[in-house]
């Protein structure tokens, strides 16, 4: 705990911390957010604890309007059901809430992502005899197509940012323009990818994710080296605003209380 306090004073942060903080900033106002496990959950809770207290968190476990004060180790944690405005069944959360278009923002992780925001959480290698079997689809395919917009977060590496996915678990944007138009009737799909190096945003003109912001200390070369396709660097490239003292303090506070709750 002493160590954490020292870092806080110096305003240094880990790569996971800046990724979480930058992702949290994407949530604003009264957005209704569908939250997956892990970093997405952390970012959404951070947003509520800092600049966006009126964001509504919806978990696929059926908890609507959960108000966790610590990071739940799973999306089925009791702190979610106990603090929710309503708890519904899992079939209902997918039909009446997600599919019905009631969710503004979906928040997804991924093992692999491509330039159109398609993601793979199913398998690395051949599907029938994979080298790494991943957990599978979960809520992702319908989160990407039913939410107003989608935020993807994952660590930036050439293994994760690939030219061609081993398996398309969830469709970001279709290559086929007619399919893409149909898809867009129910939501705009992934609009931003937040990594530990940078922020990428979907550009309708190029129909690709382009790097729009580099985190402090990261170079274009760093990003190119860790991206498996010749990623477009935006003409309006910015430097990501570093995590504030308040953001880091809040993030560490609930990470700590989560460790305590063990």
């Amino acid at each position, binding site marked *: 705990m002493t160590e954490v306090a020292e870092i806080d004073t110096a305003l240094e942060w880990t790569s996971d911390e800046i990724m979480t903080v930058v992702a949290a900033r994407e949530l604003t106002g009264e957005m209704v957010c569908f939250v997956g496990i892990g970093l997405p959950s952390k970012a959404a809770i951070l947003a509520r604890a800092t600049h966006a207290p009126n964001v509504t968190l919806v978990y696929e476990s059926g908890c609507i309007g959960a108000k966790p004060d610590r990071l739940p180790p*799973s999306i089925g*944690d009791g702190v979610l059901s106990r603090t929710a405005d*309503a708890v519904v069944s899992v079939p209902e959360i997918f039909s009446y809430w997600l599919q019905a278009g009631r969710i503004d923002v979906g928040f997804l992780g991924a093992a692999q992502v491509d330039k159109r925001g398609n993601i793979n959480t199913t398998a690395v290698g051949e599907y029938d005899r994979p080298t*790494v079997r991943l*957990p599978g689809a*979960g*809520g992702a395919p319908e989160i990407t197509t039913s939410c107003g917009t989608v935020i993807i977060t994952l660590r930036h590496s050439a293994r994760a940012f690939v030219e061609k996915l081993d398996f398309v678990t969830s469709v970001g944007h279709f290559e086929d323009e007619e399919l893409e138009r149909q898809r867009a009737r129910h939501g705009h799909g992934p609009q931003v990818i937040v990594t530990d190096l940078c922020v990428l945003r979907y550009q309708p003109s190029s129909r690709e994710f382009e790097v729009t912001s580099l985190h402090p200390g990261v170079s274009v070369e760093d990003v190119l080296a860790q991206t498996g396709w010749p990623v477009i660097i935006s003409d309006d490239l910015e430097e990501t605003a570093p995590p504030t003292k308040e953001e880091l303090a809040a993030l560490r506070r609930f990470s700590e209380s989560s460790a305590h709750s063990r």
Partner: protein
Amino acid sequence: MNARPLTLSDAVAEFVHDGDTVALEGFTHLIPFAAGHEIIRQGRRDLTLVRMTPDIIYDQLIGMGCVSKLIFSWAGNPGAGSLHRFRDAVENGYPHPLEIEEHSHAGMAVRYQASASGLPFGVLRGYAGTDLSQLSPTIRWITCPFTGEELAAVPALSIDVSVICAQQADRRGNVMMWGITGVQKEAVLSAKHSVVLVEEIVDDFTPHVNAVVLPSWTIDAVSVVPSGSYPSYSEDYSERANDFYAQWEGISRDRVAFHAWMTNHVLETKDHAAFMESLTAIGVTT
């Protein structure tokens, strides 16, 4: 006919057979671990397991060779790591190959709903463009007869027996669960038979937010198994053993360590109480 009170051992003996399609449902909360352990003790083979979120108990059943097929939508140890026995079966065919039939959560939920509704299939807006929809014979397309829109269709699940945990049963065998109740109602209403593990029997139910009551006549057997969901939890009865989930990563990664653990804590314990004691004996707080 109303639910019968049975020991978990008798309930598993009567309702879970080799070759059956079995759903031990639960969504983080109320996962019927004790029933999975009893199925392992009784040496069931060739099971088709169904669950949206197979976790450690399915990892154990797969690792112990009870399972020939898994129907699921997300197989992981949430927040803690992989299901290494599941991965070993899929990646390396150990202890034997595992057939998989996978869906998205939305698809699985619709399959349960269709089955609970007595319909042969269900419809959802999903799967478009995914590789899953290319390779799965259980995802087809259907046209809305009013708008012409193309939607995904998935078949109802066909389940022999569902096993769930609930907090309470009353003396007539009605059961009540609350907190996160997942897809458990649909699991029971989808299955030919169902077994419910409860923390205790009460004279009367107290109202709870989001309580789900299943009438006695929809259930075959009720077994009282305190902490039967451990290391999962029962809202208002127990806390989730998050440490155990974290430790499973280490236990399950290695085939030898896995078998040793299963032998010590499951095969060589006679029931769930003995399982819990065996953990206490090695210093695990249960």
